């Protein structure tokens, strides 16, 4: 495998560095030359979350000279189950500040560059040009396509990893002769069809497994050693503990890396993924009620029927004594509901119940309302003793 980085005389190692990287230096596959390549390398991590945590930690420890991190988020309690670069004391801090503290503590030789911004079509190309390799640890489709296209347009490899529940994917996209993310997935799924991690959950160790695979691929690209994941999609199944790989091909008709590309500059990725202005589809048009409104009705002992459209395992965490029909089961269980009663539907945040209300209205239910903000809003505004998840 050809190397991306030339060993740079300016990247000569000090005696302290030689001692620190001893276990690399005594392997011929790395050696002095490889360690100098690592020191000369500039890697940009998109996101300092689940995948970004192990990526940044290991790349820093391994001696990557310049590490950039793009993130604009703040650490919260639900991050700590998997985002191991952040600690309990960091809750409320900027992820960049929290990450910077850990990384510079691990390796003071690191040149860390932090970018507190959302990656956008306006800034991606300029940013990517300053780095050699891009490691994609983002969590949404628009940014996935943005990272891919910007990598193709700037000629930077895209070290890709993605996770959901118990499964992960990893590959290296957008090298000169290899396929890109669009060769595999020409189009994103319509919004709402694929649940996010916030809805579907993710096993805490999974970003560790996949992020470390990304870090490994990044280091191999820098060293020019081994067989990279270029042209292969690695599938990780943590429950079955199975690793499989699929062949990827460069699509000659790919709109961005094909022979006659139609995408020659960055586009509007929110629009491309169909989510412009409709993060909560139809939430504004559907009849809804606030948690305060629901509280008033319950206190006045009005005859209302609370329909909980979450999953049974979510009901076990907290509930409003609602009648449980998971949103996916609603079509076949709709006959369990009485359309003459006033129905208030809720889920965790209000998204799934909005779909349920839409469905019930279309099915002829006239007195059905969506609880805005879901049971989370209830826990925040009405019952502070209720757990949030």
């Amino acid at each position: 495998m050809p190397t991306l980085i030339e060993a740079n005389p300016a990247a000569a190692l000090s005696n302290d560095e030689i001692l620190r990287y001893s276990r690399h230096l005594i392997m011929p596959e790395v050696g002095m030359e490889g360690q100098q390549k690592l020191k000369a390398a500039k890697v940009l991590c998109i996101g300092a979350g689940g995948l970004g945590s192990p990526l940044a930690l290991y790349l820093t420890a391994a001696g990557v000279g310049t590490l950039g991190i793009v993130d604009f988020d703040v650490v919260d309690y639900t991050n700590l189950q998997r985002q191991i670069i952040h600690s309990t004391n960091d809750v409320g801090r900027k992820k960049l500040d929290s990450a910077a503290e850990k990384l510079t503590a691990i390796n003071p030789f690191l040149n860390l560059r932090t970018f507190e911004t959302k990656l956008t079509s306006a800034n991606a190309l300029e940013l990517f040009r300053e780095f050699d390799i891009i490691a994609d640890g983002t969590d949404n489709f628009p940014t996935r396509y943005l990272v891919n296209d910007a990598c193709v347009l700037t000629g930077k490899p895209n070290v890709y990893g993605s996770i959901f529940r118990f499964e992960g994917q990893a590959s290296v996209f957008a090298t000169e002769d290899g396929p890109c993310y669009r060769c595999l997935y020409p189009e994103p799924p319509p919004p709402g069809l694929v649940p996010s991690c916030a809805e579907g959950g993710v096993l805490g160790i999974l970003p560790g497994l996949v992020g470390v695979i990304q870090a490994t691929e990044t280091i191999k690209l820098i060293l020019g050693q081994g067989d990279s994941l270029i042209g292969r999609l690695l599938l990780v199944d943590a429950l079955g503990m199975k690793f499989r790989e699929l062949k990827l091909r460069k699509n000659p008709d790919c709109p961005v890396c094909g022979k006659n590309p139609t995408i020659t500059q960055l586009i509007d990725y929110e629009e491309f993924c169909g989510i412009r202005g409709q993060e909560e589809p139809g939430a504004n048009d559907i009849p809804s009620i606030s948690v305060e409104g629901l509280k008033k009705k319950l206190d006045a002992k009005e005859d209302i029927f609370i329909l909980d459209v979450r999953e049974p395992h979510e009901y076990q965490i907290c509930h409003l004594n609602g009648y449980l029909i998971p949103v996916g089961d609603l079509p076949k269980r709709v006959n369990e509901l009485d359309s003459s009663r006033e129905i208030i539907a809720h889920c965790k945040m209000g998204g799934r119940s909005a779909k349920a209300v839409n469905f019930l209205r279309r099915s002829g239910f006239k007195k059905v309302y969506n609880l805005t903000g879901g049971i989370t809003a209830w826990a925040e505004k009405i019952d502070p003793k209720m757990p949030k998840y």
Partner: protein
Amino acid sequence: MPQIQIPSPLRQYTQKQATVSVPAKTVGDALAGLVSQHPDLKRHLYSDDGKLRAFVNVYVNDEDMRYLEKEATALNDGDTISIVPSIAGGSC
């Protein structure tokens, strides 16, 4: 009988089964058999006009069916079909 591997985002539509065996001679038959066994899966794999959705990748063993004979690809008994959907999670 060829086996179809169901990725976790879609298992909620297959009564949680990770693999489904379907008697079939071609990939198209196997997928049709799968959605007739599990009708809730249909709208996730096919668009309203009956075509496989563009973001659903179907592999026969380790090969993308787009580079074989697509839905007409012939199947042998021990073949594994994998549905490989887009997943985006990472920092989440």
